[in-house]
């Protein structure tokens, strides 16, 4: 078959890239080989636009066992326990087929985690939809939420935290990011690096079908009006088979049978075999007629590019085949030796004893293109905000507008569709700053959370990048955890546009600086470019997933007020930064100005002091102050408990609107017993922490002297109605 210009374009390769392929191969590729190149060289697999920027991120630290480059990142939590975690996007498939797209997003990220020998213990997600008034939003929301639930609930891993947001920037391109967290023994981590020649290459799991062919290429192109036609490239999830695969793999991992293991994710059999061989500087030879197929007459091209779910590739030690086969048969899964490792450093593909394709592994992996794309810094616009106009708004009405808005409404409509309790170790379910999951049979736990701030990142990408990392860190602190490391999912528009590439580069600068200052390294992640339709790009939306450790789980802490007549302290300084706030957006539809600034020193200092208070048992409840400002944080503390709050009129403030709705960073509200005030002040003063005495807890009412008095039940109703009425 002649490779025409049209075929090359259809594979998402540029003519320049095709020339390069011919040069590397020293001949023309056949169609199968071209398909393999397109799968490995697309943005999704090769990180060709992002690689030079990603390299700058801090990825090391005492706590890091494995940084980016493996199936998932691994961190050390002591006592030979390790936590394995990663976040990944499934945006494009979820827009085309929301249920299956979201479900397979969860399935894919789970495989990344258990491939490394970890039992998954928690799932999280960050999902972003278009404006609620957009005609597709409702069905996308329904489909995505039930897809996430459908997969996690069935496989039996609790979905413990996440965020659900709406913004018209996602009207034509929603975001579905799923994060999985697993627990492994530090001395039993499995990697994807092949070792030794003539070792059996084994295919396990589901059979291969025609689903998802070219899924990775789809994820690397912009949408257009014909995107719906791509439905057949969305994979179909089977959580039951994944459960079997999980249990079978973990059973085989109990001994030393496995040399290397890799899940067949994006670009399926192609990327899994190439990655294992590349990491081991080996070759790999496959007999494709042995691949278990679900459909008849599948061609080598289809087999190599299928993205059927719930499959793994394993390289076994000599003589372990029968032992492994028994385990997979017990779980009713396919187990076939389909090839072997070689010393040729080639990917060699046979079909019924005929050579059908042969490519140097290096040409597919290390020699894949790397682009130094042009980018420009964002020009900071001067804010035209009329501050007088906004100060005249009625305080209570403004609060109601925020509390009843889709983005701030109570999310139990979403979270009640996820099993949060299965596995029996969920100490803190979703709704607090972070979820807490106990390490099974131990007195310690991890805290997990995901965060994003697209509006902040759009206005000033670098400041936005810093802010998300800090907020994520703060959320872990707020539940008494020491933050250890993050994973990131970088959702951006078209990298060939220099402004978009600038947003990417600048967000990463911000993330880098924050991670370095906080000793909060990036251990895994994923980049999703080309989020947009017909040249309209989404707001830059990096999503940060963080993991922290609670070493002694004696009395876990959350944001629910615990007692009547206890004191509320505000840690951190309030300047009244109202630009880019939820208050402006929900009351005036204004998205204006710059995001709040991050002061790294104060951020770290305040956080460490709060953690100190929690560890000493001096805090009854803690809540970080973020979107919506102080007043929304106070409402959340009250609405989730049986207590109200009384706040005396703050003295030194410019204006109550800016004071209560401003989104200044690095702040926490801490509830303490009156008797502990001296002890608490001593800790804070010793560490030079700025704090204010806000008020006290009381029954029933949220009250600010001279400003408002509302019954907590009424606020709760206002906050709980949006989803149910949508």
């Amino acid at each position, binding site marked *: 078959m002649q490779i025409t210009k049209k075929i090359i374009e259809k594979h998402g390769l540029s003519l320049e890239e095709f020339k390069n392929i011919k040069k590397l191969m020293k001949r023309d590729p056949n169609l199968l080989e071209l398909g393999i190149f397109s799968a490995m060289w697309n943005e999704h697999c090769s990180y060709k636009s992002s690689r030079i920027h990603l390299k700058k991120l801090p990825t090391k630290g005492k706590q890091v066992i494995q940084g980016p480059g493996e199936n998932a990142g691994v961190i050390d939590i002591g006592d030979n326990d390790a936590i394995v975690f990663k976040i990944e996007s499934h945006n494009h498939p979820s827009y085309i087929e929301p249920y299956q797209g979201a479900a397979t997003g969860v399935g894919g990220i789970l495989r990344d985690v258990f491939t490394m020998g970890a039992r998954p213990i928690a799932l999280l997600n960050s999902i972003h939809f278009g404006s609620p008034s957009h005609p597709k939003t409702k069905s996308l929301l329904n489909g995505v939420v*039930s897809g996430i*639930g*459908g997969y996690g*609930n*069935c*496989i*039996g891993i609790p979905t413990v935290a996440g965020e659900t947001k709406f913004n018209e920037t996602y009207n034509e391109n929603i975001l579905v990011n799923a994060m999985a967290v697993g627990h492994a023994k530090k001395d039993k981590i499995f990697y994807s690096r092949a070792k030794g020649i003539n070792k059996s290459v084994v295919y396990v799991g589901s059979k291969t079908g025609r689903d998802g062919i070219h899924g990775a290429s789809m994820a690397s192109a912009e949408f257009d009006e014909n995107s719906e036609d791509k439905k057949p490239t969305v994979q179909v999830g*089977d*959580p*039951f*088979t994944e*459960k*079997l695969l999980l*249990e079978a793999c973990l059973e085989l991992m109990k001994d030393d049978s496995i040399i290397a293991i890799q899940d067949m994710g994006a670009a399926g059999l192609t990327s899994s075999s190439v990655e294992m061989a590349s990491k081991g500087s080996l070759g790999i030879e496959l007999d494709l007629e042995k691949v278990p197929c679900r459909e008849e007459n599948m061609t080598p091209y289809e087999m190599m590019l299928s993205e059927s779910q719930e499959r793994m590739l394993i390289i076994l030690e000599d003589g372990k085949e029968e032992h492994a086969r028994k385990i997979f048969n017990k*779980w*009713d899964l396919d187990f076939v030796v389909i090839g072997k490792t070689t010393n040729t450093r080639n990917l060699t593909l046979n079909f019924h004893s005929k050579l059908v394709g042969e490519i140097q592994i290096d040409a597919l992996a290390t020699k894949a293109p790397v682009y130094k794309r042009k980018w420009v810094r964002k020009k900071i616009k001067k804010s035209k905000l009329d501050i007088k106009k906004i100060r005249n708004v009625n305080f209570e009405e403004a609060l109601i507008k925020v509390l009843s808005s889709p983005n701030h409404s109570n999310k*139990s409509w979403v*979270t*009640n*569709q*996820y*099993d*949060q*309790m*299965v*596995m*029996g*170790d*969920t*100490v803190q379910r979703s709704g607090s700053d972070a979820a807490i999951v*106990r390490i099974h049979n131990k007195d310690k736990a991890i805290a997990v959370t995901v965060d994003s701030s697209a509006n902040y990142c759009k206005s000033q990408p670098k400041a936005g990048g810093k802010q998300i990392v800090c907020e994520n860190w703060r959320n872990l602190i707020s539940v008494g955890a020491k933050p250890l490391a993050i994973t990131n999912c970088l959702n951006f528009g078209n990298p060939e546009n220099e402004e978009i590439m600038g947003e990417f580069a600048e967000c990463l600068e911000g993330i880098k600086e924050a991670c370095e200052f906080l000793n909060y390294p990036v251990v895994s992640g994923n980049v999703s470019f080309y989020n947009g339709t017909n040249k309209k790009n989404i707001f830059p939306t990096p999503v940060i997933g963080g993991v922290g450790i609670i070493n002694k*789980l004696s009395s*876990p802490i959350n944001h629910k007020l615990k007692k009547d007549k206890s004191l509320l302290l505000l840690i951190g300084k309030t300047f009244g930064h109202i630009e880019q706030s939820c208050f402006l957006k929900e009351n005036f539809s204004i998205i204006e100005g710059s995001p709040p600034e991050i002061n790294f020193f104060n951020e770290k200092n305040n956080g460490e002091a709060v953690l100190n208070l929690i560890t000493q048992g001096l805090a009854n409840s803690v809540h970080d102050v973020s979107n919506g400002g102080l007043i929304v944080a106070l409402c959340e503390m009250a609405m989730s408990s049986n207590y109200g709050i009384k706040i005396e009129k703050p003295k030194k403030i410019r204006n109550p609107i800016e004071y209560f709705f401003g989104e200044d960073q690095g702040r926490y509200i801490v509830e303490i017993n009156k008797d502990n005030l001296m002890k608490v002040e001593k800790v804070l003063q010793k560490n030079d922490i700025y704090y204010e005495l806000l008020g006290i807890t009381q029954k029933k009412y949220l009250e600010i002297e001279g400003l408002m008095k509302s019954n907590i039940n009424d606020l709760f109703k206002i906050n709980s109605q949006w989803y149910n009425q949508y």
Partner: protein
Amino acid sequence: MNSSVIVFPGSNCDRDIAVALEKMQFKNKMVWHKDTTLPKSDLIVIPGGFSYGDYLRSGAIAGKSLIVNEIIKAANSGCLILGICNGFQILTETGLLKGTLLRNKNLKFINKDVNIKVINNKTKFTSKYNLNQILKINVAHNEGNYFTKESHLEELNKENLIAFKYCDEKGVVNDLSNPNGALENIAGIFNAKKNILGMMPHPERMVDEMISNTDGVNLFSSLINK
């Protein structure tokens, strides 16, 4: 007291129930679904999960599995059987319990803590609870909407075979306190001999103060002190 937990390939609350049973001093064994014999057991538990994926009707395939014949034999000879969530669904598929579990009325998976009321405390499963005691227990299901024919419903009421009903925190049983649309707010039922209990809520999730509460403990202590 010896207990056995049946493990189907898609069971996912098997570990949770085993942890609860061991905490309550049961000597527990896990039994694989392909096994054809049961270890000596005073209590058999069919745990929650998705038995064989449940892409068909929940529990339909499990109801025809190898181990089920042994469970039926044991049930007929008086062994205590507890089916939780998917276990309840499977028990209705085997015919050991009558009725069926339809999709939740709102057509969505529901996971939350709900209140249930003890309707009959004169059984081996519930003796440690007070009559009409209100328990807060977690539910997590897609098909928990109990339905049965009228004659059976009459029998359930007449013979006092309803174990638990969904209610609000004050004990009021009505539509508002019914999470899934179940007939008469039924959350759990016994068979005629009261040696089999099927229930949608998960008592094994309520045995640890750190995680939730301890409202499920008395179900297990009733059984161990039967």
